[in-house]
Structures are given as C-alpha cells and as structure tokens.
C-alpha cells in the first residue's frame, strides 16, 4: 500500500508540475511585441522631441499617445491572435498564462508611466535600459512557469539593459541596442528558444551575439550617415561680416574662448525678472556643426569623434547647498557637472 501511495503521490506531483509549467510564449507574441518595441525605439526620439513639442506636458501626452497607444494595440493583437490560434489547435490558455499576461501588461504600463515621469524628473538617459529591463523581467517570470528556456533570454535582456549603463555607452548607442533587442532579438527569440532545449548555453549566447552585432552595425551605419563632413573653418573666419553663413558649416572654437551661458530660472520663491549670464571658458577646442547659422547638435572635442549633443553631453546637478555667511547672509551653492567627452 505504501508503494502504491508513493507512486500515486509521485504521479500527482508530476502532473501538478506539468500543469503549472504550461506557459508558452508563441512566436507571434514575440514578433508583435518585438516589432512594436523596435519601431518605438526608432521613431519615438524623433517624434517626441523638444524641437516639435517644446513643453514637458506636451511630450508627456505624446508619450501616452504614441508609446501607450502602440503598446495597447500590440497587446490587443497579441491577445486575440493567441486565443484564436489556441482554439484552432484545440488548446486552451492556462490559468497561469492568463495571470502572466496581466503581469506583462502591468510591466508595460509601468514602463509608460516611468517614461512620462522621466520627462518631468529627469533620468531620460536610462529610458531604453529601463524598457529592456522590464521586458527581461517579464520573460524571466514567464520562464519560471514554462517548459521553454525563457529564463536565459530574460536574463540576457536584463544584462543588455544594465551592461551598457555601467560602461556609460552613448545614449544613441543605447537606443540602437534597444531597437536591435526588440526589433530583431524578440522576433528571432522564438527560433532560438526551440533550439535551446538541446543546448541551453550556446543558443542564448548566439542570440545575444546576434543582437549586439546588429546594434553595433546599425549604430555605426546611422552615425556614419549623419556625421558632419567638410572643411573646418576658424571662429574668426566664420564671424567675419563678409562670410556667407548659409548651408552647413563646421566651425572650430579654440580653447580659451569665453562662452556666455544664459540661465533662465523660473521659481515661486525667487524674483526671476532677469536672465543670469555666467561666462565660462573652454578648456579644450571644440568643432561644432551649423546649418543656416544654427547649431544642429553635432560636435567633437580636439579632432576626436563627432558625436551628438544627445549622445555626448551630460549636465548633472551634483550638489545644492545652502549656508549662512556671517557677512553676506544666506548663500546658495550649486555644483554642476558638464561633461562632453565620450
């Protein structure tokens, strides 16, 4: 009887295990979410930019409409196709998969919320990493309840999210890593996942290599296409009244040049009628690209690599301190770090 009881209990455990590990991410799901994410990585920064939408709340609404809207469409499409395909194959969507779908939607909603928050509170540099982390988390959670070796791919997504941040890869490179991870990585993950059952280590690493190679390739090509080309002229030549400031010009600003920084402060406490001008001096020579007399965001330091302001320039408020000077009275000190070298 003990033997029968043992066999029965073992059999029950096996069936419970099988029933709980019944989550399956279909290829169409990976393709839909991957293409939606990849498309957003390519167009979001172009459409939702201060150039077209100068005010924070306008960009926040645009994020809600574009990012939230496209992901909602992807979610509905995925849900309907998954249920239709399962019915066609005379299969069901298990209870666990229903719950994990809700988890996936919650994580996508969190991503939209955080992206909107970044518009108001900063941290935009991390936005693409944040999205990759959330998708990696979702894949890992799916993997916990699935026979598919999804945990590996979830882990690699998280590694792709955090690794570039640690080495401070330029923002534009992060964008193309995310675009490759979503647009190429997710749709092809279905194929790699199937093969991973036989070789659980090699195929995930091969997938990761494919994504990184695609990201590096795209970033190199895109950067090369837009990189300014031409002869660099001196600032004094450019400022000469007889020089025609039309078309694209590359201008060298030598080290030692004083550049006024105009600071416009809005405050509910301070009198802000005037703009504060702080003169700063360049410590390194700088080449900038202009079009019709206006900077277009490309620069390079001391004949280094051309980079965009979005990629290379970082302004951080390190410290805000207040003190009471015994002669002058209250004093506010601000420490700002401006780095342009990458």
């Amino acid at each position, binding site marked *: 009887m003990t033997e029968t009881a043992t066999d029965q209990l073992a*059999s029950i455990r096996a069936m419970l295990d099988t029933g709980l590990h019944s989550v399956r991410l279909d290829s169409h799901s990976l393709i839909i979410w991957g293409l939606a994410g990849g498309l957003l990585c390519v167009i979001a920064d172009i459409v939702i930019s201060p150039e077209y939408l100068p005010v924070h709340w306008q960009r926040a609404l645009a994020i809600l409409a574009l990012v939230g809207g496209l992901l909602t469409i992807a979610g509905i499409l995925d849900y309907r196709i998954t249920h239709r395909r399962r019915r066609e194959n005379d299969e069901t969507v298990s209870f666990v998969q229903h719950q994990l779908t809700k988890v996936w939607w919650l994580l996508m909603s969190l991503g939209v919320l955080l992206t909107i928050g970044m518009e108001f509170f900063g941290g935009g540099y991390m936005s693409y990493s944040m999205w990759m982390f959330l998708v990696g988390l979702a894949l890992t959670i799916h993997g916990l309840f699935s026979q598919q070796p999804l945990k590996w791919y979830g882990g690699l997504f998280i590694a792709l999210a955090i690794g570039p941040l640690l080495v401070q890869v330029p923002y534009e490179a992060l964008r193309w890593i995310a675009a490759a991870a979503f647009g190429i990585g997710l749709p092809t993950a279905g194929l790699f996942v199937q093969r991973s059952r036989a070789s659980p280590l090699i195929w995930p690493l091969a997938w990761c290599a494919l994504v990184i190679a695609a990201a590096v390739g795209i970033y190199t090509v895109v950067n090369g296409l837009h990189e300014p080309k031409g002869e660099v002229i001196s600032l004094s030549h450019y400022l000469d009244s007889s020089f025609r400031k039309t078309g694209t010009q590359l201008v060298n600003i030598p080290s030692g040049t004083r550049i006024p920084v105009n600071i416009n402060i809005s405050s509910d406490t301070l009198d802000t009628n005037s703009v504060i001008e702080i003169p700063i001096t360049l410590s390194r020579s700088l080449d900038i690209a202009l079009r019709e007399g206006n900077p277009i965001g490309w620069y390079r330091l001391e004949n280094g690599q051309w980079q965009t302001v979005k990629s290379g320039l970082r302004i951080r408020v390190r410290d805000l301190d207040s003190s009471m000077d015994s002669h002058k009275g209250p004093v506010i000190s601000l420490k700002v770090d401006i780095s342009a070298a990458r």
Partner: protein
Amino acid sequence: MQKYEPGANLELDSLLHQPVRTKIVAFLIARGEATFRELKNTLHITDGNLDAHMRKLVAAEYITTHKQSGQGRPQTTYILSAKGESAFRVYLDNLQTLFNHPR
C-alpha cells in the same frame, strides 16, 4: 490533514484512486482548464481510454464541461468543479496520511 488513528481504515475515493483519473484531476487543478486534446497529449493515452475516464469524472460531477462557440470552430474545455477539487484534497490528505503511517 486528517488525524490518523492506528488501526483505522482510511477510505480512498475509488474514483480518484485510479492512476489515469488521478493524473487528469491533478493536471486540471494546476492548469485551470484543458481540452480533450491537451489531456491526451499530456497523459499519452488513446482517445477511447481517455474518453472512458472523462465520462466517469463528469458523471460524478468532479469535472464540468464548457462549450465555447463564437469565431472559429466550437471548443469543449474541461474544468475541475468545486466538488471535484474538494474530493481531490480529501483524497490527497488520506494518501499522505497512509504514506506517513504505513501499515
């Protein structure tokens, strides 16, 4: 878990104390619902064999059937009923008790 009195005769539900039917119920409790095809693919038994066991479980009201119509072909799914879930838990308790107190 039921308190075991030495010498007592624990009754195991005869409907559930059958390997295939135990597996069917265990699978449904974990998965929520399943079609005939999913059960067959998981248990690796023939249509006729599975059908016979399903009929007994449905007749005892341990399992309920749901027919879904709409877009595409109609689909029948099997779900464990509250009675079936309760019966399975009692069966599991008794089985565990027997395991812990072998005769």
